[in-house]
């Protein structure tokens, strides 16, 4: 990963900007710039929680950072927290899930639409379209392939292509894959371009629309 000084993460309560201790303000600025360009996704208007992993910027530097985030990136700082850890891990390398609650999906009832099982891999150029309900793929969705569902999409393999869940403007839909490395995800009317050259993480992940109206991706634990 590009740098480990600053990490921008989407948690269920919104965006977090995690900053390692003992950095200069210029280092923080540069790292933020890099991290935001890496996100590859418009953030304008979102609010962000700053998590400090130890002693770092002076109060006046903090104030400067807040105004800078607002002006340059249109990001509103909604709070600043110091998260003390004995050994600060290199943030980019560490999975972000340790701060997540066990249950990753909101406890609202899932819709009980019909679902369709696709017992094969969706290859490049193939489209599986099921506006009536949810799709379950027993295979992969390869780059150049596309799955579209009115409800949820569950890929029991690698999702490397495009997926659009919640077709009829239903932002409560989710996309789950054993390996989530898509070209592009869409849930309802929200779009998330996959990060470039992402390596599989080795655990299932879930994508859904979070409180800031951005698609967030987390480790999938259970419904």
């Amino acid at each position, binding site marked *: 990963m590009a740098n480990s000084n600053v990490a921008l993460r989407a948690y269920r309560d919104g965006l977090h900007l995690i900053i390692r201790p003992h950095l200069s303000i210029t280092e923080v600025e540069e790292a933020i710039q890099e991290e935001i360009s890496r996100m590859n996704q418009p953030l304008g208007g979102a609010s962000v929680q700053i998590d400090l992993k130890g002693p770092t910027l002076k109060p006046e530097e903090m104030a400067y950072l807040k105004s800078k985030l607002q002006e340059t990136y249109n990001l509103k700082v909604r709070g600043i927290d110091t998260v003390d850890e004995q050994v600060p891990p290199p943030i980019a390398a560490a999975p972000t899930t340790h701060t997540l609650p066990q249950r990753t999906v909101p406890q609202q009832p899932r819709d009980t639409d019909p679902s369709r099982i696709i017992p094969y891999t969706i*290859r*490049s*150029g193939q489209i599986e379209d099921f506006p009536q309900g949810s799709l379950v793929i027993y295979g*992969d969705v390869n*780059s*150049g392939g596309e799955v579209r569902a009115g409800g949820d999409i569950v890929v029991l393999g690698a999702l490397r292509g495009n997926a659009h869940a919640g077709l009829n403007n239903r932002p409560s839909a989710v996309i789950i894959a054993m390996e989530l490395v898509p070209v592009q995800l869409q849930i309802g009317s929200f779009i998330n371009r996959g990060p470039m050259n992402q390596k599989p993480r080795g655990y299932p992940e879930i994508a859904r629309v979070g409180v800031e109206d951005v698609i967030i991706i987390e480790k999938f634990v259970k419904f």
Partner: protein
Amino acid sequence: MGKVIVVTSGKGGVGKTTSTANLGTALALLGKTVVVVDADVGLRNLDIVMGLESRIVYTSMDVIEKQCELSKALVKDRRVDGLTLLAASQKNNKDDIQPEQMKTICDKLRSEHDFVLIDSPAGIERGFSNASAGADEAIVVTTPDVSAIRDADRIIGLLQHAGIEPINLVLNRFSPELVGNGSMMDQEDVLDILNIDLIGIVPEDTGVITSTNRGIPLVYEDASPGSQAYMRIARRLTGQRIPIPDLEQKGLLTNIVNWFRNR
């Protein structure tokens, strides 16, 4: 009764023609009767790679238009017994031939040869449907890069839809060194995506270029790594069980050996 195998890829320039020429020659060297068919109407070059361009009188188009008998259109390769070429017309284009006409030709050739190898043009349109119309099996050629792999994936979907089976993969222009330093996908990554059986890995081999220019398929040259790879694939096509040597391991070992040498 032989087998009709279409050699295809989706993307151009990945080694379909090279593979058709070398596998055809290799199978003949193993004693099989083989015809290699150029299905790239309008852009033929299998005849050049085989070094037979000066001997072509009739093409598949002439056979379809009943200008000559199929047997008369087959150009005999004089370097090895049992190998012939059916050339494509250079004057026509791909829409001048119907898939059913290609199928009729393939059916005839199948009854008289052990192997019929069809060199498919790039793309997924008529040229591809013509090339695969009479095929029993397929060999998909890809190089280890994302765009070739995506196109191979597309082609595999179309072949599966057409009920062509088995579909085997040739991974061409593989470079253990590039895999070793992380700048090329390794075979596991490729197979993970394409999910078909690997029939062989052909390394990047500068000998391919010189052999193409001379019109002498690489497999006549025993020592070249590309030649050995094609000979192994040909043996596998005849049903022999030959393990796929781990080129990556060899690459790693070469790297280590070179590292010690350079100290």
